[in-house]
């Protein structure tokens, strides 16, 4: 079925477009953008997008789909359903599954399972076997089989020598590495941001320097090896400044921020709300300000969810022992929408479309240029709704936003011209 989306506010940062336009799609591709476009074929669905925002399909470059191994928490299929309803068309799945995605056969498994879902699921492979930080994986073969990037996910590559070798070797694989920057010796046992609040709550803190030391080292190694290195979920003002300086020197580094680090402070954990326990931890209002500024000035390239489903048992326990992470695929769109204004919409959309497409080499993706994949996110920026448990399509419900009123809702998600979600 062909598509003609009429009169939406089309925001396509790759083409510097932000105006009311029509978008026509034929086959699985974008046909053209323009005013008063003709109907492309007799088999065309016409969508009235007046008052709605139309963007390239959103890409989440950092999420956890838990399959294989923890299908009680999420499956590739359930994560994909949550993603589609949250406006995402492409997911990059982190490799911290059981077993971990550290060989080509497992990359193929994730791709095959993903192919049965309505969204595009792209596997991220591990940098080291079993993410143990000791031996490199067969990155070249995994890349050939479809891994879009490599990461040891929650485990920072603490051994600088291994990270150096991995960065060097990744040139053969032709794919970027993603590091979770956190000095494990400084963050060990930490459950939240270190500061006055951690002292009051009697919880072990993680100082911001744990991240900044690792960011600084990672940037240095990107310089030494030629990278490319992508820094996962920055949380501190200091990290933003380090990346800013690194980019100024022309070093091959890119960076991301999660939706929750852009919107929540450490205050969310007071009362020991384990749904607000995340790794790296939520920081302070000053950090949020710096992260937003970093996004505006291009220091931070992309916005991710770090969607991390966890079972009730892993979350309904004492804070120290509770699992880290929150789900985010269905709350990202409204929370990002609520930031529009303070941060230009084009910057936010770029962080979810053309920037991740560029960093991870996703072809014909992240923009609405003719011939590109017909992946679209159409949302109502004014629609207000309350996140109720029964609306959650993920198999887990660990989010501190439950019960919260949110503004902005996906109206239709289109992947390869196919409508994969309709409100």
């Amino acid at each position, binding site marked *: 079925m062909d598509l003609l989306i009429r009169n939406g506010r089309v925001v396509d940062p790759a083409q510097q477009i932000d105006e009311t336009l029509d978008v026509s799609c034929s086959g699985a591709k974008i046909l053209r953008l323009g005013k008063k476009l003709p109907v492309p074929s007799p088999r065309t669905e016409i969508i009235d997008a007046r008052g709605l925002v139309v963007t390239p399909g959103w890409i989440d470059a950092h999420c956890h789909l838990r399959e294989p191994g923890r299908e009680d928490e999420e499956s590739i299929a359930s994560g994909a359903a949550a993603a589609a309803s949250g406006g995402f068309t492409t997911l990059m799945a982190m490799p911290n599954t059981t077993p971990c995605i550290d060989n080509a056969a497992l990359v193929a498994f994730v791709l095959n399972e993903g192919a049965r879902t309505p969204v595009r699921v792209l596997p991220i492979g591990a940098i080291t076997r079993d993410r143990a930080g000791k031996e490199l994986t067969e990155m070249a073969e995994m890349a050939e089989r479809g891994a879009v990037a490599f990461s040891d996910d929650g485990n920072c590559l603490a051994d600088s020598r291994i990270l150096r070798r991995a960065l060097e070797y990744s040139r053969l694989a032709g794919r970027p590495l993603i590091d979770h920057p956190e000095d494990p010796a400084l963050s060990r046992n930490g459950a939240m941001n270190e500061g*006055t609040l951690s002292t*009051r*709550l009697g919880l072990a803190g993680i100082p911001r320097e744990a991240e900044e030391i690792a960011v600084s080292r990672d940037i240095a190694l990107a310089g030494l090896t030629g990278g490319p290195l992508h820094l996962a979920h920055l949380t501190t003002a200091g990290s933003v400044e380090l990346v800013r300086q690194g980019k100024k020197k022309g070093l091959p580094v890119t960076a991301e921020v999660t939706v929750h680090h852009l919107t929540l402070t450490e205050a969310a954990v007071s*009362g020991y709300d384990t749904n607000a326990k995340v790794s790296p931890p939520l920081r302070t209002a000053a950090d949020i300000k710096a992260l937003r500024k970093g996004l505006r000035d291009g220091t931070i390239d992309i916005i991710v969810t770090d969607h991390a489903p966890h079972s009730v048992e892993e979350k309904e326990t*004492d*804070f120290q022992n509770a699992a880290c992470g929150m789900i985010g695929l269905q709350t990202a769109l409204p929370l990002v929408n609520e930031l529009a204004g303070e941060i230009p919409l084009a910057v936010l959309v770029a962080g979810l479309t053309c920037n991740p497409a560029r960093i991870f080499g996703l072809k014909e993706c992240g923009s609405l240029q003719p011939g590109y994949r017909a992946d679209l996110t159409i949302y109502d920026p004014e629609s207000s709704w309350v996140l109720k448990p029964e609306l959650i399509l993920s198999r887990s419900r660990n989010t501190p936003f439950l019960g919260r009123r949110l503004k902005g809702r996906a109206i239709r998600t289109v992947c390869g011209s196919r409508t994969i979600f309709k409100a």
Partner: protein
Amino acid sequence: MAWTRKHLLSIEELSAAEINLVLETAASFKEVSTREIKKVPALRGKTVATLFFEPSTRTRTSFELAAKRLSADVVGFSPSTSSLVKGETIIDTGENLEAMKVDCFVVRHASSGVPALLARKLKASIINAGDGNHEHPTQALLDLLTIQEHKKRFRGLKVAILGDLRHSRVARSNIWALTKLGAEVILCGPPPLIPPGLETTGARVTVRRETALKDADVIYILRIQLERQQENYFPSLREYSRYYQVNRETLSLARPDAIVMHPGPMNRGVEISTEAAEDRRSVILNQVENGIAARMAVLYLLLVGK
């Protein structure tokens, strides 16, 4: 004023008026323990369960005696003999006991926030008997009762608290309690054992024992856990004692009528010398005695006082 709380989870959440109400109630219960028949019927028909996920002798015994002297039925639960070893969750354990119609849980756990978690999940009243590095509110209340008996006031008193401030729930509860009641609190310990932001409570912080002890009215010595040395919070017990021990010599810096307190159990020869522990100014056993009255007051207010 009237008591309105269902739980006692922290001192931080209490107002000065609430703290004073507990102290007044405790003072009136103190006499019960001096009677030939040490019992009043205030909590007859109520069931109190002690839920200690972490070992304790004195706090648990103190709570049990307090409940019994108020005629409550008391049951104890300890993880070694329980189904916790079979993987039962904290909440399951609480819900199972609650199904037996327990009115009040006295909870101790090695992890901060567990009493708050149980308070959210259970219908019964929860008393925090020490959670991780967070708070130990009844310890602070019995300490206040002890200070009040000896000093008759809090406002303007200089209270020095020495030791492992980072890991001490006793310190946190006492800092909140004493600053709320107008005492001047000075905290002292080796720098790695001073957590960030302590001064935001209104207390002062120093690393010098002499500064803390100078003209102090109350000297509160925290237990130093011997394993902290292995974690490199300080190089040796020897050096710790050299710079932080309260002994006869350093005690002389305080006011002549200063009192010496310790929440127990003491490491004699480490944070406190035997001479200081047994000095006429030591009120350590007095604290233990007041534990019963303070806990009777808390149990009474939570279960009847509303």
